[in-house]
């Protein structure tokens, strides 16, 4: 068996980092403006009418609103976000879901689709059967529907796109790397489905044989994986490793860069993809392709 040691890499040269695009960078306690005409947004606080930064990051100005965006932070939910989460607790008429945020999100029994697709009031029987829909440890895809008064977010899965996730594997990346875009559901050319959760949880699974509308009620909440061929399994593993490689280099993640990284990774063995040097080659190639596409 081949054994490879990953020794700690030497710290990168951080002496000559230039601020290429003239970002206005502030650190906690730094004064941003003393003009009382400005309003303070996220990442700031006021002290005697002076707007100060409370986090280290980049200043963003929208008209009269000043906010500071930290570059590494936990996920901040917004209504309409697609997230991937894990059930942590089954409670009275609700599930608690870990979405990598500052609090667990809540999925109410009234905001899930029942098997069979019928719209009806949830009965006591449904409440007793809650564990048969989602139980602790299950992965779900969901959308942020609303916020409770204490700041916790309420999710819903009232769409066939959402619901229990199976036949695949989860990759966790920093949430800042996944940006809001038109769609978060993709089918890659290599026959792999992708859900880019805005909370940094990415689910990579095999492309289902049947459309979700054709699934039987039992299959919708089933805990069993379908048959996955060797080819599909290795495609999933390769995509997962590509995403991990991109995250290692703190590259933003969307469908096109994953496709480019996948193509660049094809000459290598899947198990080798996470070695530092191969990682770097793949990321650089994918980055070049993206830049080429943008200049065209």
């Amino acid at each position, binding site marked *: 068996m081949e054994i490879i040691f990953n020794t700690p890499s030497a710290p990168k040269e951080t002496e000559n980092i230039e601020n290429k695009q003239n970002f206005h960078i502030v650190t906690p*306690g730094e004064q941003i403006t003393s003009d009382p005409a400005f309003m303070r947004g996220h990442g700031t606080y006021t002290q005697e009418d002076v707007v100060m930064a409370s986090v280290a990051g980049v200043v963003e100005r929208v008209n009269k609103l000043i906010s500071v965006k930290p*570059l590494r932070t936990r996920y901040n939910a917004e209504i309409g976000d697609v997230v991937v989460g894990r059930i942590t607790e089954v409670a009275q008429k609700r599930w608690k879901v870990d979405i990598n945020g500052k609090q667990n999100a809540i999925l109410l029994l009234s905001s899930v689709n029942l098997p069979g697709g019928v719209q009806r009031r949830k009965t006591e029987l449904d409440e007793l059967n809650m564990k048969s829909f989602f139980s602790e440890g299950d992965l779900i895809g969901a959308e942020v529907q609303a916020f409770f008064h204490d700041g916790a977010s309420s999710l819903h899965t009232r769409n066939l796109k959402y619901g229990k996730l199976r036949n695949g594997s989860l990759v966790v990346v920093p949430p800042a790397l996944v940006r809001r875009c038109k769609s978060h559901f993709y089918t890659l050319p290599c026959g792999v489905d992708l859900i880019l959760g805005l909370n940094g949880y990415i689910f990579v699974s095999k492309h289902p044989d049947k459309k979700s509308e054709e699934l039987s009620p039992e299959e919708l909440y089933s805990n069993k994986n379908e048959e996955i061929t060797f080819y599909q399994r290795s495609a999933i593993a390769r995509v997962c490793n590509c995403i991990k490689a991109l995250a290692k280099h703190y590259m933003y993640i969307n469908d096109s860069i994953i496709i480019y990284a996948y193509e660049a990774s094809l000459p290598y063995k899947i198990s080798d993809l996470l070695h530092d040097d191969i990682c770097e080659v793949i990321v650089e190639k994918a980055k070049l392709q993206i830049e080429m596409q943008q200049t065209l």
Partner: protein
Amino acid sequence: MSSGLDLLSPEGLRIDGRRANELRRVNCKTGILVQADGSAYIEQGNTKCIATVYGPREPSHKNLQYHDRASINVEYSIATFSTSERKQRSKMDRRFIEIANIVKQTFETAVITSLYPRSQIDIYLQILQIDGGALHTSINAATLALIDAGIPMKEYVCACSAGCVEDTPILDLNYFEENNFTPTLTVAVMPNSGKISTLVSESRLHLDKFEPVFNLAVSGCKQLHSVFDDVIRKSTTELANRVMEKQKE
């Protein structure tokens, strides 16, 4: 009891060759661990510390959930190999719990916890090598890790120790100086506003000496602030260059 003369030579130099008002070499780095929300590594002379921050996240216990603010949880531990004598230490050591409590109280004033009700911020401190000033190094490491995690703070918290040898105030004591019955003062300040968040002393210090020693410690904190600000600014710029340029598409 050894005389003060050993600690301060007639030329005004200390055992390690520093002058009385000189800090030890500071070396720090943020974002060293990928799996944590924020992390930092700091060396002050031969004292080395890693701080890891997780959160704000769902509290581990219901009784740590406050409806109006986040709770801060600090765990302090030192590596078995960190001192000259190799020794296994329990995490429940009363001394460590006390240090963890001091760090916790320091940051409860600086972190804007009211933004995150019903959540918890965890700070894990691990000392890798001790050469005096473990408390102030821990506070400094925690500050850097919290900023790295994007947790809102009023401003930096910088900590430094100072002591008094033969009427001369000395800055940033090392292990030998700390253990020679030198009266020691550890101060944590928020340098811009000048507010003091922590002042710890475990020895007797004459009231007349207090002010010069205290002022020296504060000046040390201000020097550290400029070092930390430089490091944070660099790492933030680096991340901004990587992540933000794509937003201009």
